[in-house]
């Protein structure tokens, strides 16, 4: 530990206000003399010029190489004239240009990514290593998703090309139109599956938000016998997956006569523990004084819930709406639905996907359709979701 450079921050001995301000800034991790301010505009212009020069060199080298190759080919075919041997120079130029571009690009990226003021306890090399690793992992995480999109746009001959390529050369929407044709051949139209899924998602989500918020409100803001016990059971239930409860639920549903109806999917979704959990944790951070004030003004519990608490936890209900939509949209519910005209979209699509190697392209198209909805919803609402998740902690 002693090997590392340690900055000792001593409070100033004088009573000079400027010294004390500087001391405060240093405590916040600002060291003005060590951090010359970066002029972003100028830096960008310089970077642009440097990269443009390198790119020009690269293009020049490539053009020359192509010319030389063409010339050499002509020489070899006609058998007259001398072979141009200057190709190696241009190869060196090309490699050097690519290398310099990569190095400079990375340097520029790191410089731009530097926070305005450097945080204490962060070394430059540590930051660099983390950025490189994050970039590599992000590429690895994104690759399968990009690959599904690329595959869904490939014509048949490219799907089975050897050696295979990741990106399509002739972009086509054939797979999607084939998918619609395949769907059209089953005796239930495509629109029916979509309607089923939308209906289940909409009703399930709406009921879940209302019911779970009501329960979360009293659990978070009132101290009544049994409330804490109930909540701890709900927390344990976060671990129950649909598989563990699947069999008794199936038996129960069949006793109620709800097998092969939408209710077999919707009713359990109403009581999903994650929604109640997130809602309760968020509502706990609302000031109790707000509710007491409403009480004194004579508002009833339901009035307080509906017109005071609910408007104040908008991010939370957006979040549980999104979790619920994701859950219901992706549910195949293959164990409780049998009739063709009640199947969900994902169930129907998975059956197409299971069609084997001949349907590779269509299967990739299915994957793209299914994944687009939840990912788009998440992108649009991620700031609210993160706000809610900030209170998601479990206290023991």
């Amino acid at each position: 530990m002693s090997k590392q450079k340690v900055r000792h921050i001593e409070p100033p001995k004088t009573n000079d206000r400027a010294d004390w301000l500087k001391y405060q800034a240093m405590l916040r991790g600002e060291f003005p003399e060590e951090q010359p301010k970066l002029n972003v505009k100028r830096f960008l212009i310089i970077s642009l010029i440097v990269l443009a020069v390198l790119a020009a060199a690269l293009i020049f080298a490539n053009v020359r190489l192509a010319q030389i190759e063409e010339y050499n080919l002509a020489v070899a075919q006609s058998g007259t004239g001398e072979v141009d041997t200057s190709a190696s120079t241009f190869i060196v130029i090309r490699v050097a240009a690519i290398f310099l571009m990569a190095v400079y690009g990375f340097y520029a990226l790191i410089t731009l990514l530097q926070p305005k003021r450097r945080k204490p306890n962060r070394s430059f090399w540590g930051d660099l290593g983390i950025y490189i690793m994050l970039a590599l992992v992000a590429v690895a995480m994104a690759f399968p998703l990009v690959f599904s999109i690329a595959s869904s746009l490939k014509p048949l001959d490219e799907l089975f090309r050897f050696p295979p390529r990741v990106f399509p050369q002739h972009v086509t929407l054939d797979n999607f139109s084939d998918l619609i044709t395949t769907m059209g051949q089953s005796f239930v139209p495509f629109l029916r599956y979509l309607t089923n899924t939308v209906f289940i998602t909409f009703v399930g989500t709406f009921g879940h938000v209302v019911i779970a918020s009501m329960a979360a409100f009293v659990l978070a803001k009132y101290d009544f016998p049994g409330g804490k016990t109930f909540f701890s059971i709900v927390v344990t239930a976060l671990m129950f997956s649909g598989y563990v409860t699947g069999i008794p639920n199936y038996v129960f549903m069949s006793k109620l006569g709800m097998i092969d109806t939408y209710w077999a999917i919707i009713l359990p979704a109403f009581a999903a523990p994650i929604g109640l959990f997130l809602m309760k944790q968020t509502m706990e951070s609302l000031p109790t004084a707000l509710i007491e004030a409403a009480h004194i003004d004579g508002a009833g519990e339901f009035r307080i819930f509906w017109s005071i608490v609910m408007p104040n936890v908008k991010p939370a209900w957006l979040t549980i709406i999104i979790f619920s939509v994701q859950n219901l949209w992706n549910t195949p519910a293959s164990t409780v639905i049998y009739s063709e005209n009640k199947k969900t979209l994902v169930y129907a699509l998975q059956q197409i996907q299971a069609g084997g190697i001949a349907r590779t392209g269509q299967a990739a198209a299915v994957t793209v359709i299914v994944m687009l909805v939840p990912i788009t919803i998440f992108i649009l609402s991620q700031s609210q979701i993160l706000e809610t998740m900030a209170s998601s902690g479990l206290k023991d």
Partner: protein
Amino acid sequence: MQSTAAGRPKTSYLSMKKDNLRYSWEKAKRMKVCYLFLLPYAILFCAFFILPIVTSIYYSFTYYNILEPPRFIGFQNYINLVLQDEVFLTAVRNTFVIAVITGPVGYILSFLFAWFINELPRWLRTIAVVLFYAPSIAGNAYYIFSIIFRGDAYGYLNSFLMQFGLIDAPILWLLDPKYILPVIIVVILWMSMGTGFLSFVAGLQGVDRSLYEAGYVDGIRNRWQELYYITLPSMKPMLLFGAVMSITSAFNVCDVPRALAGYPSTDYAARTIVTHLFDYGFSRFEMGYASAIATVLFLVMILCNKAIQAMLRRVGT
């Protein structure tokens, strides 16, 4: 609303307990409206989460095939499970291999990446969060791995390795029992940045800045010390939540092996406890036996959760 016990006469422990009961009852009567609010959720929750666990335990002691009423057979299901069902033992082994690797590794990676992402500028952080979280919500996007790991020479991994001369004949990634489990583990790790990861990202943004300033003055010198002494202790609630989430996903592996390795897979190499449960519950309709499997799985998960909670209590102290 906050009622306190103040003002009650001091009494002995026993009579106080009795008093407490009566007191709670009085309080419960006064707060009827709370129960009214809780009622709809409580009914549904009990019907679809509590009742199933209870009936599952009950069914596990019976022979039940839905057509006939359940017949009580004692511990026979459990005895068969351990002594006669070799496939179950394979399933248990596979599940534990998957859970032991993907659970802790997925959990630690989720936290580490959340922590790294937290240092990025805002716009880049948003992109990174979307990139890392997307695989876990992308429906059945794991299907694409069946193209990447396809067994013939057109499979992407095979042709890639063959081009570089690392292998000379295509490998049957999804049919050869040697490779099935590692492939599935890779895919599950890819999907492991789920709800827990989001919770970490959000939690890290909420850590009190003044703690870092205080730590800096107190002589914390690098990011790892900062992580251990400041960040982790303030993140404990999120860490607990993330642990619950990762246990759930580590033990309930079902869709991925079914989609990639087939159902049933070669030599049951990709059989997990949940696919076994699925097989007995929804293919053979031996509900009693399947319930015994579900009960075992449930108990293992609860135990794991308790163990992890005990472990996390020590972090940063």
